[in-house]
């Protein structure tokens, strides 16, 4: 191991040509507070500049990969949102700084990226778990975007769904119903590359990383640039920025605020709220 830095929310490792960002906030389900988002972003920038690094692995300690945004104490979790609300009446810019720019940095990262996903990968966590170049999931992994049913949000600050599903109906079904997609379905619909038993996950990802790293750095960077440009030409980058405008807009609407109020006051998690809606529809 060449470098191992333990920060408040993550561990950052550099091991030959492989860099690893390990979400390490298991007591809070690796939820993405502002600090975690910034630490991930700082590590990305470092790995991007380091000529020794050829591959980046995103993974997590604890029961699952990432549970998404912190719901509850916005002032503590997202001082940028609170500041925006105080200064200009909306969290629009704060959202951009915490959840658009850094997610675009992950997607635009100049070298190959691999997500190693186990357990839950929810809400904003899918932006880490599904926007890497390669996703390897363990058989206990599952993906969900609960905020549509559970928090009134029209997808995330970066609306990745049209781009990662590349299928209108699947993206619509997943979002509208806050569908839980297990590892096998994720494999079937092309969200992940491989599903492996949990005890083999780490080894498999490391093997893939070493495999990729045998190619010249230049070749890897050019391949990444060329893949990325196809999606840029299709409009993904601009669409992501536009989706943050919609999220900010939604948060000012009364019907959305009513749902958010219900979730906050009842201390209900968005995923739980989504499940209540599903059960209530089934009971009718």
């Amino acid at each position, binding site marked *: 191991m060449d470098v191992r830095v333990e920060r408040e929310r993550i561990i950052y490792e550099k091991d030959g040509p492989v860099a690893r960002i390990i979400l390490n906030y298991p007591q809070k389900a690796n939820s993405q507070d502002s600090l975690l988002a910034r630490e991930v972003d700082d590590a990305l920038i470092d790995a991007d500049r380091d000529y020794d690094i050829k591959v980046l692995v995103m993974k997590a300690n604890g029961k699952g990969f990432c549970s998404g945004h912190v719901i509850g104490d916005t002032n503590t979790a997202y001082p940028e949102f609170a500041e925006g609300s105080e200064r*200009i*009446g909306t969290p*629009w810019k704060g959202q951009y700084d915490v959840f658009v720019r850094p997610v675009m940095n992950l997607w635009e990262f100049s070298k190959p990226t691999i997500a190693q996903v186990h357990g839950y990968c929810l809400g904003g966590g899918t932006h880490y778990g599904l926007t890497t170049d390669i996703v390897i999931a363990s058989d206990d992994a599952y993906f969900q975007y609960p905020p549509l049913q559970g928090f009134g949000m029209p997808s995330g600050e970066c609306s990745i769904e049209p781009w990662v599903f590349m299928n209108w109906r699947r993206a619509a079904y997943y979002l509208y119903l806050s569908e839980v997609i297990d590892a096998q379905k994720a494999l079937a619909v092309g969200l992940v590359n491989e599903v492996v038993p949990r005890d083999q996950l780490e080894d498999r990802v490391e093997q893939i990383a070493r495999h990729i790293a045998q190619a010249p750095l230049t070749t890897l960077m050019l391949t990444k640039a060329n893949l990325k440009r196809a999606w840029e030409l299709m409009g993904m980058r601009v669409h992501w920025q536009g989706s943050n405008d919609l999220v*900010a807009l939604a948060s000012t609407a*009364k019907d959305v605020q009513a749902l958010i109020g219900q979730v906050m006051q009842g201390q209900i998690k968005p995923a739980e709220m989504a499940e209540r809606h599903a059960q209530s529809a089934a009971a009718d």
Partner: protein
Amino acid sequence: MAHWRLPHGAHRSGGAGGAVVGGGVVVPGAGGRVVVEPRRAEGWLPSPPPQPAVATTTAAITIAAMERKELEAVIYEKDGPVARIVLNRPDKANTKDSVLVREVDACLHEADRDRDVKVVVLKANGKGFCGGHVARWGPDEQPYPEFGETFEDLYKGTADLFLWPTLYLWEFPKITISQVHGYCLGGGVYLGLLTDFVVASDDAYFQMPLAQSLGEPGGHTMIEPWITMNWHRTMDWFLLAPTLSAAEALQWGLLNRVVPRADLESTVEEMAQTISRIPLTTLMAVKSNVKRAWELMGMRVHLQVSHILTNLVGAATDVQALRSELIGSGLKPRDFIARGSGPGAEPPRPPEEPTG
């Protein structure tokens, strides 16, 4: 050179394709006659461009009586291949209240469905072309019932009034010409500058006062990057809110021609007649192909996204503070911008006066 002229009296309905028979093209003729025209000698060519009956003789244009409908805020005229939408609320500076917007949109739809119409002229009665959105309402006025009471209604209402009709004017399948005199301000620039041709009289002037007054990033659909195709001019236009004279607007590439006020009408009418000599199909094909270049560059999506941003800023407290200041001042947006320029400043400036 082959001539695809129809024999006198023969009519060819607009969209009917001819069947190829032998060496000629069979087209339905008037009174059930079949006219066989020779194919071009120099090689295979598709059937000739169809021409609407009305364009086959100039006599048809003069024979047809002009149709004229006076609506609440606009007058709609149909005059052979030329339709005219005349903004007709001079007492309200032709401001785009809900009625005016919906009437313009309805007239456009009618002109689109009307097979005789090839060109639509947008012009205005009164001292100027269009004063923009209604920024200052009287106590009993409700110029925008669609806006409702809530933020949600406002989002939908502004889309229905200021996004979709604007996109429709831009996408309008036939040719559009704006005939601009006097002021063309704020939301009025969408009617004045988003058409295919813009002819202005030398007294015309253009301004987007909304960033400096209402704190809006333009008016719901940001057409400026697409019509100026110039980054620095676009930023200047929005943030410094200059009043562009007709000559300056011509220099910026926003206009086709600037003519003396007395020649404005005749210039536009002549232009419309010249254009309408071209077959409708050709006109629509040219328009589609030009439009698609801008669509491929992203204009259509950009206009929709800019509507979202325009609504979003309304929720921001710094924008709300500026609006309160505007409302408190009792000034119109254009005059509000000029406030603090000295006592008595400043009535709407004719462009020839210094603007600093």
